[in-house]
């Protein structure tokens, strides 16, 4: 089988979620192709080591019609994307144009029988389901952090697709506000998150300090973003961002079920709370019962 992976970049390098997507594709495909609109030939030509056989360089990934022929001309069986806002747009459009089924939140490798069978997380991580497809071709949007990144020894071929420059934009961007900090919440290996237990926005410096030492992203609970202590884009939970880091620190967060829905895919959850009955301890891997204002500085000190 042949797979086409949509590549996402953070600044100048491939995101870990894309590296995972390529490793994932290599588990059940003979050939794995990539597609990108980042035209950095020197960098792209190194991505054989990440598992790509071929990379198509196009003008604009959001101009789907300009490159949709690639899928049929190269006998692509499955299209793989990581979960992010742009990939939802791209995958939906491809699905409509090529009449391909689309599965979100894929959490396991598809089985290689005549029918495609694949697992997907549902109910915000509270359950999963096995999906059977009666189509040979499909689009898979992967849940984050479901496979390890592997090294490969492939030689990658680059193919630039020249298309007529067309102004497809039906909109104008007036202003862009980039999130501060280098580490994207959805991509972070470690996330340090805090809740109302911190009592006020002025107490967040210790959260930021701990995050800095651990090369982590910062997050917060819904009451905290609702109160304006932290920006909305830091809110993780049922109605916020869903994350699946390797390590999640929950400081002064009681662990309401809505909060858990956003973080329960984390590999290890560490809960710090002065209330030994906080529900979050039931879902935690590790717990410390104690005052955040005492415990967090101790962790920072011990790590320094």
């Amino acid at each position, binding site marked *: 089988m042949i797979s086409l992976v949509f590549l*996402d970049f*953070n600044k100048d390098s491939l995101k870990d979620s894309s590296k995972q997507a390529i490793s994932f594709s290599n588990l059940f495909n003979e050939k794995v192709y990539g597609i990108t609109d980042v035209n950095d030939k020197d960098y792209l030509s190194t991505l054989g080591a990440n598992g790509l056989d071929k990379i198509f360089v196009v003008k604009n990934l959001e101009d789907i019609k300009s490159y949709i022929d690639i899928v049929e001309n190269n006998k692509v069986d499955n299209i793989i994307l990581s979960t*992010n*806002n742009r990939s*939802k*747009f791209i*995958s*939906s*459009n491809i*699905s*409509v*144009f090529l009449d391909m*089924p*689309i*599965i*979100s939140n894929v959490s396991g490798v598809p089985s290689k029988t005549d029918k495609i069978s694949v697992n997907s997380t*549902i*109910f915000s991580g*509270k*359950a*999963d*389901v096995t*999906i*059977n*497809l*009666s*189509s040979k071709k499909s689009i898979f949007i992967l849940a984050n952090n479901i496979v390890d990144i592997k090294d490969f020894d492939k030689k990658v071929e680059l193919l630039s697709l020249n298309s007529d420059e067309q102004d497809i934009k039906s*909109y*104008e*961007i*007036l*202003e*862009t*506000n*980039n*999130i501060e900090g280098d580490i994207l919440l959805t991509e972070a290996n*470690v996330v340090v998150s805090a809740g109302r237990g911190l009592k006020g926005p002025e107490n967040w410096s210790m959260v930021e300090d701990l995050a800095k030492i*651990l090369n982590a992203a910062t997050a917060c609970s819904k009451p905290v973003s609702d109160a304006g202590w932290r920006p*909305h*884009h830091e*809110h993780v939970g*049922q*109605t916020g961002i869903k994350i699946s880091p390797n390590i999640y620190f929950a400081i002064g967060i009681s662990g309401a*079920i*809505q909060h858990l*829905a956003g973080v329960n895919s984390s590999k290890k959850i*560490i809960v710090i709370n002065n209330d030994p009955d906080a529900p979050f*301890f*039931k879902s935690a*891997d*590790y*717990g*410390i*019962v*104690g*005052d955040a204002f005492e*415990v967090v500085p*101790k*962790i920072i000190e*011990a790590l320094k």
Partner: protein
Amino acid sequence: MNVLVCISCVPDTTSKISFIDNKSFNSDGIQFIIGPYEDYALARAVELKESNSDIDISVINVGNETTEPILRKALAIGADRAFRINLEPKDSISVAKYLKKFIQENSFDLILMGKESIDYNSGIVHHLVGAMLNITSFSPVTFLDFDGDSTIIKRETDTGIEKIKTKLPLVLGCQEPIAEWKIPNMRGIMNARSKELKVLDYDEVDSVISFDNYNVPTKKEEVKFFDKDDINGLIDELKLKNI
């Protein structure tokens, strides 16, 4: 201006999820609600109507008769009329096809949805409908207002927030803080009783996707506690110094 708000009927966010014989959702004892993101979408539509009486709000749901209480609630919150497409919402693509048919048969300037339903979390129906109808779609949208002929929105990207100027028609997947959730008042509830709730019988579309075996993950190991004076124990266990 005709606004359509597409709502999902989902288990309350605090629900304990279980399945009958791994085959179907166990709705025993479950309170169903308007999906939280669609609740934001509806609230924003009602806010816009409060400042512009030319706005007419329709709400629609794909589902059987058990979803009518949430459509009544949407009417009580401020929608003018409700529609129910009398079919099971089996997967994103078939729901999008039903909505496409409805939107083609009627006329809407603005189609609002949530960024995703909180049961199957696909987060693609808005973009699918946009692609099917060749209407620009954005998601997740955190701000929506009008400026003369233009529509101003803010959308979350993967690195930040973009403020965008665009034109109707649009399909938007909404997310907080686009509006504050609204709670129906007594007058709204009384008015909702006399508002139209129309049931539409569409032909079922074929789907190549079947959901066959549901599972609830088993609880992982018990939490391991560290004393607050044993920080190094935790640090060693997690190998934090290697990060």
